[in-house]
């Protein structure tokens, strides 16, 4: 009942799986998406939002390469915000609130509209392996689906175990079955596996809330969007709301601590430190009397509301009693309680930079199975796994991104080099070259690469080229055009910057901290230029950043180049670290398992010291 043999079979239809199957299919592979439930493709299991700090940059990168997450987010957005706008451009981070149901629907429609994507609904219970090479998957009905390559994106479903208070039951998400069989088989094949934990807050009935008692959190006045393509910009938006917990709330929550799976030892696995449950916050930061709670609508029309900041696995009666004590929640009705979930993951140090496993050829892992958390992190891995699965079976060069090229590069390099003990989330501080990895230039950084491998469309490439050319010309205009000192001093007075004595190039004054594009547009030459050349907002923003931050951008570029030297020293595939007795024991162990490709990668492995690196350099004859 299936194609004789698929090029790529993707197991799981979440953010990672959806991107993976789309990428492989768009590049020309015959691809199949197998999922336990075709109704939950592109499901937002946690909060109804995409992007945020560092994550928004990732969505832009996915879009620039030709992935779908940006487009789906734009089409289903109910609110848009550019976070951190008061800071430098590297920090500007787009975030959307989304209609959960529309989001999933858009994903389904996008995939249905992608030629080469087939669908099948059933649980995959095993992998077909020939020697050390993947051959397909086996379903719960006992059907064998043959495939040249397989991408596993199982999310929290592998032996998922849900905890609410003292109750626990198997499940991959609230109301959905867990997946069994795959972990056991992989362990038999020689993989290490571990357990991780994450949690989610209660969903409640918006009609039962008193929004008058909360602080509205509206979207941007002039909302932007994720995709570099022509997706719609929001005309109306829905507000979020903010409220706070209090001492009283904390006291009620504490009453349930003895029945908390977090504290009574039932949950042993590690949860993310930066996304703690409310009980964890109270326990670890006892001195804080109040924590923020964000109330996020789940869609345009639904009354369901997501209680962000109140993730918990306390007994449902405690959740209910405590939440009713929160300002604005006095009459709250629950749709469903919050819960914690434990699931299997495979330490990602068992992967190559392409996300192919080291043990089984043509088998790829993406998303939470690699110990990450977050839709954006998952989607970007899915995209990269889908791309590389396609490239590998078509005998093409692998596609990887460097740490100075993309957050996606940072993410994957961190995963396979350092592994992760807790669910891994992206932060801008994880990137050494944050100033280079901006949301405004993801297209300039990545679209040419996406185009070259045959994923980013012609339209995308032309748009990017036009933006690049126009920005460059605009910057040149500022470099070459002189201002009239009288006009300029008017602006400088307005921003309280020192006046100029004589005419000079615009670039000089534009570089000053307080002078913005808005000010420059007050000069007739500039506004004329913008009108004549039909300069849009994106080009203006790009030119402004290039003028104002060129010093920092250049500095980080040169730092990145310096590191590139170590990046170029490759370590042979079969290098035997066990023979290097002079390496520290820890370094030897780690190097032997992680098997870094370059000296630079080796230097990022925790436990590998600078002296270990010198030893390596000696043996490599440098």
């Amino acid at each position, binding site marked *: 009942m299936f194609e004789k043999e698929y090029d790529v079979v993707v197991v799981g239809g979440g953010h990672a799986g959806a991107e993976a199957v789309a990428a492989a299919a768009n590049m020309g592979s015959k691809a199949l998406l197998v999922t336990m439930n075709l109704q939950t493709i592109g499901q937002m299991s946690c909060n109804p939002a995409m992007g945020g*700090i560092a994550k928004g940059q990732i969505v832009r990168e996915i879009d620039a390469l030709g992935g779908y997450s940006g487009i789906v987010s734009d089409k289903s957005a109910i609110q848009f915000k550019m976070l951190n706008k008061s*800071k430098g451009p590297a*920090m500007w981070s787009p975030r959307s609130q989304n209609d959960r149901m529309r989001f999933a629907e858009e994903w389904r429609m996008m995939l249905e509209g992608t030629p080469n994507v087939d669908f099948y609904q059933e649980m995959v219970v095993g992998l077909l392996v020939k020697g050390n090479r993947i051959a397909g998957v086996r379903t719960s009905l006992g059907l064998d689906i043959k495939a040249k390559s397989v991408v596993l994106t199982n999310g929290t479903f592998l032996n998922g175990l849900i905890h609410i208070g003292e109750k626990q039951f198997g499940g991959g998400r609230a109301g959905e079955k867990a997946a069994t069989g795959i972990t056991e088989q992989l362990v038999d094949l020689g993989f290490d596996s571990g357990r991780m934990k994450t949690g989610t807050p209660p969903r409640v009935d918006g009609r039962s809330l008193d929004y008058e008692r909360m602080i509205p959190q509206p979207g941007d006045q002039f909302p932007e969007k994720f995709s570099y393509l022509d997706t719609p910009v929001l005309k109306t938006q829905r507000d979020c709301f903010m409220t706070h917990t209090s001492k009283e709330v904390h006291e009620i929550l504490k009453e349930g601590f003895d029945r908390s799976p977090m504290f009574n030892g039932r949950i042993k696995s590690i949860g993310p430190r930066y996304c703690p449950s409310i009980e964890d916050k109270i326990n*670890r930061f006892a001195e804080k009397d109040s*924590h923020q709670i964000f109330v996020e609508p789940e869609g345009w029309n639904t009354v369901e509301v997501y209680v962000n900041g109140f993730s918990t696995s306390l007994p449902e009666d405690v959740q209910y009693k405590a939440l009713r004590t929160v300002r604005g929640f006095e009459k709250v009705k629950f749709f469903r309680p919050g819960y914690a979930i434990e699931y299997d993951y495979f330490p990602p140090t068992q992967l190559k930079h392409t996300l192919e496993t080291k043990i089984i050829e043509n088998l790829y892992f993406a998303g939470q199975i690699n110990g990450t958390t977050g839709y954006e992190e998952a989607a970007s891995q899915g995209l990269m796994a889908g791309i590389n699965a396609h490239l590998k079976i078509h005998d093409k060069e692998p596609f990887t991104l460097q740490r100075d090229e993309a957050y996606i590069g940072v993410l994957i390099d961190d995963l396979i080099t350092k592994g992760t003990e807790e669910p891994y989330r992206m932060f801008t501080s994880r990137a050494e070259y944050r100033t280079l990895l901006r949301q405004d230039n993801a297209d300039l950084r990545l679209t040419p690469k996406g185009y070259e491998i045959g994923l980013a469309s012609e339209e995308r490439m032309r748009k990017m080229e036009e933006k690049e050319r126009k920005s460059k010309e605009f910057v040149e205009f500022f470099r070459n055009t002189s201002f009239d000192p009288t006009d300029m001093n008017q602006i400088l007075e307005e921003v309280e910057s020192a006046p100029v004595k004589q005419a000079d190039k615009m670039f000089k004054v534009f570089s000053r*901290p307080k002078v913005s594009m808005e000010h420059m547009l007050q000069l007739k030459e500039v506004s004329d230029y913008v009108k004549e050349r039909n300069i849009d907002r994106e080009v203006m923003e790009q030119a402004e950043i290039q003028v104002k931050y060129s010093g920092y951008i250049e500095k980080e570029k040169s730092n990145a180049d310096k590191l590139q030297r170590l990046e170029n020293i490759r370590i042979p595939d079969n290098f035997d670290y066990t*023979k290097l007795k*002079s390496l520290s024991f820890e370094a030897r162990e780690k190097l032997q398992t992680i098997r870094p490709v370059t000296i630079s990668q080796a230097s990022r492995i925790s436990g590998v010291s600078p002296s270990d690196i*010198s030893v390596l350099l000696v043996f490599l004859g440098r």
Partner: protein
Amino acid sequence: MISQDTIVALATAPGTGAIAVIRVSGPDAISTTSQVFEPVRGGSLTKASSHTVHLGYLKEDGRTLDQVLVTVFKGPNSYTGEHVTEISCHGSPYIQQEIIQLFLRKGCRMAEAGEFTLRAFLNGKLDLSQAEAVADLIASENAASHQLALQQMRGGFSNEIKNLRQELLNFASLIELELDFAEEDVEFADKKQFSELLTRIQQVFRNLIDSFALGNVIKTGIPIAIVGEPNVGKSTLLNALLNEERAIVSPIPGTTRDTVEDELVIGGIGFRFIDTAGIRETVDVVESIGIRKTHEKIENARLVIYLVDAKEVNLTQEKRKEVQGRLALLKDQYPGKEMLLVVNKVDALEDGVLSRLTEEIPNALFISAKENKGLDTLKDQFLNLVNTGALTSGDTIISNTRHYNALIRATEEIRKVQEGLESGLSGDLLAVDIRQALYHLGEITGEITTDDLLGNIFANFCIGK
């Protein structure tokens, strides 16, 4: 592999010993050594056979540094497989450092930790079975040299750098917190505290850097300026100090420098008087505190002797106040300089007056240059300033050339951070410079990764919606 550059480093344990060995290796090892080495038997090292030992003097511009033994090894028959000279010199850190400095000036490069062994390995001087031992050695040399380098910096300083780095790291975490968790309900960096920290860091680094710079200056002596009104006895004091010194300077070759007219060596440390010619002009009527020339002198000095006439200060209370006022003004104007208030011509005072004056001017030294009184105390005072680190002696430096460079760069980055902070630069751009500064400090104290920052944040702040 053929190395292009010639490297130099101390081959024996650092510190004071009977002798020390300095090793030079690379294509120019023998020719460079030959340029500065005068064999007792005459001839040139370049013509010497391999594996021979030569007695002679190390000289630069006619100035003798030390009497040494030079052993010549010609590549490939040497430890590193390159041309090598090994210079056995007298064991004081001062001499060691002088010699290494000399080779650095002649175009050699300071060897990295373990670099001699590395070169030996790369030149195939060690076979495969020895290879593991080599790597071990390099690893241990790294650890040891790192340790050593830290010890060699004055203990207080190295701790201070570590502490400052930690403080900077804490602030960097706060800045990152503000960036990555802008929406969280947490307290962010206190800009004023941060600015104070930056100022403090710059001061400490400046001191360290100065101490290094001073080490380099030692070969020409720590510069001293004698300033004061005409006829207070500047020239007499100068002659008294120098004449006495001439008697002390011993002509043992290699342990002292050629005596220079205006130079004074006390306890192995060189001091040099600025503008002696100016002082010696008998009619220096135009000179007085406050004129431009005097300020130039002070500018170039590390140590300033403000000389006054005992008879003058004895005259009135006002006069004494005036002197103290000027001293305070000088200290204010030149915060980096050490100022000594010296009252001359105590021989001209009547009996009993001196003890009263010492009480009235407690911060002064009382001397008679004419009668050689109090000069030893004055010279002890010079040395004290060196020993307390106010003026730095030479033994803190040489192996820390890398630290010196790291400090210079770190200071530059810190300065940029402070500038940025003052002009209201956004945190992500400040972070670019802070990260660079941390990186350079990491070169001194160990490594840093971005994980440090995140770990710091998660440990101290309640994060997460």
